[in-house]
């Protein structure tokens, strides 16, 4: 194994999904890789809902299902719009998801990342934990040639530094590679781990074996802020969380922990977690600015992957798959240049951006580039007015009270028109359709 004093082919900053994907891919191809992680072990600083999308990992470790710590494979997705006393749901459950190679799993990131890190080590990378990278080292021309850490000693040098440092991205920021994250393009999410016997979870969610359910919810639960709540079933626990855009928290002055308490107390959520033992409380930022918030991704001797590059598809609640894919694509670029004996220059590393453009990552982020701003600009409408209107419509429709159906229909339409006006309704539909395109 390489000595820390040597020069490495690549240094990877961070051991989350993007860093592990990058380090694994490069090490497996024979590069001399050093990965530096500030946590006690890979995963100890990492927070996610969390859902693992198999496809992105399969492209890196095809046989991952045989050994990775997975919780439940998802067979049912519930999308809820909520007001204070109700939820209106669209549920999709299919036994097709009970396939030999399931498509989505719930995971616990601290455990999953630790496993992924063990694969990185097996592939031959040197993984240095409990070490925080403090800055990038540049030569006189401004080319990144290595990193400094909070451990005493000389800088550590490499041909290229892969910044997989996560949403806060301090190293890149402080080295002038990108700006501080904007308060309106990042969400603060808080989450608790609720433990219950697996039989209880299976009974409450109508599950067998390792089947799992995920709930994504929006509505008055975020108190007028842009955001969503979620509930994911794990093997013997339930992850419950809620997140909103930071600038909305600033405006509303709502306490995130109280927001979570209110979500947990909602009559649609409370019975699902009743009697559980809470074993952890976590908070984390999620990049939600989408395509328009993506910073510069490559430069002389450096390349950015994962949350540090704002690679999250907020509309579909996808992040870890974008992280792993960007990590893999960056690594493939580095491996190619290394084999050709080419420099890790800004010009050559652009190959990574070409690969990104050709992948679902940029295609999806581009498709939804107008959505974050649209939702944020109209948060009162999309996270307050419509959820209330939908709930009221459902209640009017389903309550049998001697009122004839025609009158009920008219009352529902009147409510929509009075709340949003006809022009408003058409405008909302038009702007969503345009941003969705």
């Amino acid at each position, binding site marked *: 194994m390489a000595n820390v004093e040597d020069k490495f082919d690549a240094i990877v900053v961070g051991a989350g999904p993007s860093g592990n994907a990058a380090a694994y891919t490069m090490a497996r191809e024979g590069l001399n890789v050093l990965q530096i992680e*500030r*946590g*006690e072990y890979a*995963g*100890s*600083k*990492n*927070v*996610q809902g*969390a859902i693992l999308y198999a496809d992105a990992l399969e492209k890196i470790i095809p046989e991952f299902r045989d050994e990775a710590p997975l919780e439940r494979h998802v067979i049912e997705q519930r999308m809820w719009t909520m007001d204070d006393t109700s939820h209106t749901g669209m549920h999709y459950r299919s036994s097709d998801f009970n396939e030999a190679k399931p498509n989505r799993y719930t995971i*616990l*990131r*601290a*455990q999953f*990342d630790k496993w992924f890190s063990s694969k990185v080590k097996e592939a031959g990378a040197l993984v240095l*934990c*409990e*070490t*925080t990278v403090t800055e990038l080292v540049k030569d006189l021309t401004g080319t990144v040639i290595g990193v400094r*850490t*909070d*451990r005493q000693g000389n800088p550590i040098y490499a041909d290229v530094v892969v910044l997989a440092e996560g*949403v*806060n991205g*301090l190293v890149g920021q402080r080295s002038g590679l990108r700006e*501080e*994250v*904007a*308060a309106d393009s*990042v969400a*603060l999410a*808080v989450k*608790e*781990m609720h433990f219950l016997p697996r039989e209880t979870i299976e009974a409450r969610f109508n599950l067998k074996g390792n089947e799992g359910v995920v709930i994504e919810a929006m509505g008055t639960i975020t108190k007028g802020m842009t955001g969503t709540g979620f509930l994911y079933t794990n093997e013997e*626990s339930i992850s419950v969380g809620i997140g909103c855009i*930071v600038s909305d*928290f*600033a405006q509303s*002055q*709502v*306490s*995130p*922990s*109280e927001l979570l*308490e*209110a979500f*947990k*107390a909602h*009559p649609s959520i*409370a019975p699902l977690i009743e009697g559980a033992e*809470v*074993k*952890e*409380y*976590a*908070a*984390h*930022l999620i990049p939600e600015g989408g395509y328009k918030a993506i910073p510069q991704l490559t430069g002389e001797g450096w390349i950015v992957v994962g949350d540090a590059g704002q690679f999250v598809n907020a509309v579909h609640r996808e992040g870890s798959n974008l992280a792993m894919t960007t990590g893999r694509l960056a690594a493939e670029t580095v491996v190619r240049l290394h084999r050709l004996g080419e420099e890790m220059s800004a010009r050559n590393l652009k190959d990574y951006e070409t690969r990104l453009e050709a992948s679902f990552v940029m295609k999806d982020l581009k498709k939804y580039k107008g959505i974050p701003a649209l939702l944020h600009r109209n948060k009162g409408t999309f996270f307050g007015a419509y959820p209330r209107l939908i709930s009221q419509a459902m209640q009017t429709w389903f309550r049998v009270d001697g009122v004839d159906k025609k009158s009920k229909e008219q009352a529902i339409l009147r409510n929509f028109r009075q709340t949003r006006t006809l022009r408003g309704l058409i405008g909302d539909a038009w702007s969503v359709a345009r941003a969705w395109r």
Partner: protein
Amino acid sequence: MTDVATAPKVEEKLFQNRYLVDAGKPHIKVRAHEVPSAGLLSMTKLCPAGCYALTESGQVEVAADGCLECGTCRIMTKTTGEIEWNYPRGGFGVLYKFG
């Protein structure tokens, strides 16, 4: 159904977590100030770990031992620079068991 008014306080939530506190080396410091900016003041409500408090004389102080390392306070004060924010030294700080 849990009553929000009797819900656990943030401090009680933090007791569930594992931390390795770097004693005497807080990773977040509030710079000396007379009057806090709106952004800094809002952290007394917005910090998910309840690390920020208002002193009797009207300044905002931080006790970062229970910090969840989210970064919200740094973003909220990015234009005023009232907070000096670093990651804890390698190995220190919150140690998520589940994440």
